[in-house]
């Protein structure tokens, strides 16, 4: 017999801050840091290839900072969802790995920002650090996608999902 109680527990929000049932806010919050950090690396590449390096070097610094602010919000919301996953399960372990990789990625981007003391250009080491941050983020994001789309964390039950397949009048 399969015990569905642990699975069901992970489908409900622990707090309304985490978003209503069937609408997790963590999935929304992660969009800004990922989009801002990917854009920051695009700006880095433009900065080293264009004559207008200073403009894009400044833009990349702002984008990394926007990403860091967004990541703090995402981390809080992620922690709330993680706390409702029952202990001793593969989903809990996947969530822990996802969280640790994201904390490392945040530290790497903070380091990348700290390296950008020069106003006029992007230091090579800072650019490499950002790429490393994105590589970490790809792995952690894959695990986050696995939690939602394979393990169904914060996804409504199939009974609720059936609403979606009701025929229209």
């Amino acid at each position, binding site marked *: 017999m399969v015990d569905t109680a642990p699975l069901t527990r992970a489908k409900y929000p622990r707090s309304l801050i985490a978003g209503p049932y069937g609408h997790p806010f963590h999935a929304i919050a992660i969009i800004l840091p990922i989009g801002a950090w990917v854009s920051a690396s695009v700006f880095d590449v433009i900065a080293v290839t264009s004559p207008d390096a200073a403009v894009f070097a400044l833009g990349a610094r702002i984008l990394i900072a926007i990403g860091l602010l967004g990541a703090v919000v995402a981390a809080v919301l992620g922690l709330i969802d993680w706390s409702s996953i029952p202990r001793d399960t593969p989903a809990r372990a996947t969530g822990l790995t996802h969280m640790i990789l994201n904390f490392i990625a945040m530290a790497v981007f903070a380091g990348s920002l700290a390296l950008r003391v020069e106003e006029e250009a992007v230091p090579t080491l800072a650019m490499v650090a950002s790429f490393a941050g994105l590589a970490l983020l790809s792995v952690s994001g894959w695990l986050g996608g696995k939690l939602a789309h394979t393990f169904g964390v914060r996804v409504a039950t*199939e009974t609720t999902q059936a609403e979606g397949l009701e025929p229209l009048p």
Partner: protein
Amino acid sequence: MTDLDTRPDKRPANPLAGPYGHPFHPIAVTIPIGAWIASFVFDIIGLIVADPTPYAVGSRVLIGIGLVGSLVAIVLGIFDYLRIPDRTRSSSTATIHMGLNFVVCGAYLFQLFLRTSTDDIPIAGVIFSAVSLLTLSASGWLGGKLAYRYGVRVAHESKQAEGFVTRRSRR
């Protein structure tokens, strides 16, 4: 396979849409949404600081990054849309989600023509961006509803259960 008949929307239309339990559309949407929010932040900074040039240039490039990313997201979104059974709440939600997103993409494309100057941030552009982001919030909410409430491209609960095998029951 029986569940292929009842919930075709849980499986990918093709390998490009991402494997079962790993849709690529939610990954792709992070670029346009994140870049366009950042573009709006650049606009606000550009309106406040003495020298708006780097922010005017940056904001325009971010709109461009968002447009390129949205093309990928649109293609992947259409793949998932094709799997949703017709004439259901889920399919009508997806149709509205797609329609709103096309309007937003069109508005950002139009904005590139508003933002030809590198010396200032056009107010019309800022207003366009604000309205576009509000529209994107509505369409994004519907996209979240499709995934997290209607379970489109989410694995079946029989598969989800693999994540919740406790050490006790494994023994």
